[in-house]
C-alpha cells in the first residue's frame, strides 16, 4: 500500500499539486485520472521520488520515503517497477538485455539464471522470439510489453504505469489493460496507473482518483464513477457522446 499525505509541489510560481492526500491499495488497479496539465504525472513522479515536493509525505507500506537516506531510497526503489509513457527501453541494448538489466545491477544471479528469468518475464507479456531485437525494431505495443517485462523482472511490490495506452491502437490498448490487471492480481502489487484513457478506466479501474486543479477532486470505484453527480468529473469522463450513451446503456441514467 502507498499512502500520500498532504503532497504539494510548485514549479516557480505555478502551484501544481495542492496538498494531495490519497491511499493506493495493494492488489487492485489504482488509477490517477485528470485532464492534461492537471498534475497527475507530477503526482506520480513525486511518489517515485523523481520530483521532490515542498510539503507532504509518501509512505511505502508505512515507510516514509522522503525521510530516507539515499541508500535506503535506492533499496526501496528496487521494489518499484515503472512503465514509462515512452517505454524508456535502453536503445543500445537488446530486448533480453533490457529485461536482464535490473537483475545485472541488483542480483547475484548468473547469466543463465538471468536469461531464464528474462524469458519467463517476456513470455508473461507475450513477447516470444524477439530477445535479440533492439527496441527500435519493435512496434509501440511490443515496446510497452517489453517495458512491463523489465518492470516485473525483480518481482516488485509497487508498479507504476504512466499512460500505458498512449499511442496504441484500441486492440493493443485492451491487451495492455488486461495485462496490467492480471499482473496486479498475480503478484499482489500496489499498482498505480496514470491515464486519461476512459476505456481503460472503465475496463480496469478499481480505485480511481480524479485530479483537478492540483487537488484530489474525487475518489471512488467504477460504479461510483458512473453514479457520480460531480460536475467536473462528469465533464471530464463523459465529454464524448459515446461515453454518455455508454453510461445511459449501463445505468439508465439521463443527463
Amino acid at each position, binding site marked *: 500500500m502507498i499512502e500520500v499525505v498532504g503532497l504539494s509541489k510548485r514549479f516557480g510560481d505555478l502551484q501544481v499539486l495542492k496538498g494531495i492526500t490519497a491511499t493506493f491499495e495493494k492488489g487492485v488497479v489504482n488509477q490517477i485520472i485528470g485532464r492534461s496539465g492537471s498534475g497527475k504525472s507530477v503526482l506520480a513522479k513525486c511518489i517515485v*521520488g523523481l520530483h521532490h515536493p515542498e510539503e507532504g509525505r509518501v509512505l511505502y507500506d508505512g515507510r516514509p520515503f522522503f525521510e530516507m537516506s539515499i541508500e535506503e531510497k535506492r533499496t*526501496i526503489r528496487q521494489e518499484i517497477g*515503472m512503465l*514509462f509513457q515512452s517505454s*524508456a527501453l535502453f*536503445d543500445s541494448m537488446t530486448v533480453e538485455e533490457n529485461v536482464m538489466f535490473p537483475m545485472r*545491477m*541488483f542480483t547475484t544471479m548468473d547469466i543463465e539464471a538471468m536469461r531464464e528469468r528474462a524469458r519467463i518475464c517476456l513470455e508473461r507479456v507475450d513477447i516470444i522470439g524477439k530477445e535479440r531485437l533492439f527496441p527500435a525494431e519493435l512496434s509501440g505495443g511490443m515496446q510497452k510489453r517489453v517495458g512491463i517485462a523489465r518492470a516485473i523482472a525483480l518481482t516488485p511490490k509497487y508498479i507504476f504505469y504512466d499512460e500505458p495506452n498512449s499511442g496504441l491502437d484500441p486492440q493493443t490498448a485492451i491487451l495492455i489493460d488486461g495485462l496490467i490487471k492480471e499482473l496486479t492480481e498475480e503478484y499482489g502489487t500496489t499498482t498505480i496507473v496514470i491515464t486519461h484513457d476512459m476505456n481503460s478506466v472503465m475496463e480496469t479501474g478499481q480505485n480511481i482518483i480524479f485530479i483537478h486543479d492540483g487537488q484530489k477532486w474525487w475518489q471512488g470505484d467504477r460504479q461510483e464513477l458512473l453514479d457520480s453527480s460531480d460536475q467536473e468529473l462528469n465533464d471530464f469522463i463523459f465529454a464524448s457522446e459515446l461515453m454518455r450513451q455508454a453510461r445511459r446503456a449501463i445505468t439508465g441514467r439521463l443527463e
Partner: protein
Amino acid sequence: MGILLHIGRYFEFLRQVVGRPERTRLYFQRTLEEVDLLGVRSLGIVALLSVFMGAVITLQTSSNIDAAWIPRYVVGFTARQSVILEFSPTIISLILAGKVGSNIAAEIGTMRVKEQIDALDIMGVNSASYLVLPKIVAAMLINPFLIVISMFLSIFGGWVVSIGTGVVSPTDYITGLQWDFDPFTVTYALVKTVVFAFIITSVAAYHGYHTQGGALEVGRSSTTAVVYSSILILIANYLLTQLLLI
C-alpha cells in the same frame, strides 16, 4: 547568476558521478566499451589530422626561417616543439571536444528526453555514475595514448615533407628533432591531455544530463557542450602552462 547556477550544478553533478558504483564489474566492462567508443574510434581522424598538420608545420616553419645564419635543423626543432607542446595535446583535444563531446552530450541528452535516465533512477541505479563515470575514466586512460600517437604521426608527416619537397634535408630535420630535447615537455603534454579529457567528458555529460525538452534541446545541449568544453580547455591550457612551464 546563470553561470553560478551552472557551476554549482556541475560540482553537484560530479559528486553524484563519483558516488559508489552498484556493480564494480559492470562499470569495468562499461569502461572498456567506452575506451573503444571514445578512443579507438577516434584514431582515424587523429591520425589523418596529425600527419597533415605535421607536414604543414614543417612547410610553414621552413618557409619562415630563411635567414642564412639560422641553422636548417631549427625546422625540425620547431616542428617537434610545436607538436609536443601545443598541437597534439591542445588542438587534438579541441577536435576531440567536437567529436567526442558532442557525441556524449547527444547520447545522454537523448536518454534524458526519452525518460531512460528516469528509468535508471527509479530502478535505484545512480544514473549519473553509471552513465558518466566510465566515460570519464575511459577518456582519461585512452586520450594520452591518442596524443602520443598524434605526436609520432605529426613528426612523421614533417619527415615525409622533408623527403618529398626538400625544404629541409631529412638529416637536418632529424638533427632538429633530437636537439635540446627536454623529456619534461612530454610529461607536460600528457598532464594537459588528462585534464582536457576530464573536461571534455564531464562538461559534455553535464550538458546532456541536464537536457530538458526534445530533439531541438538535445542538439542545443550538444552545441553548448562543445562550446563550453572548448573554452574550458583553452583556460586550463593557459593555467597549466603557467603552472608547469614558467
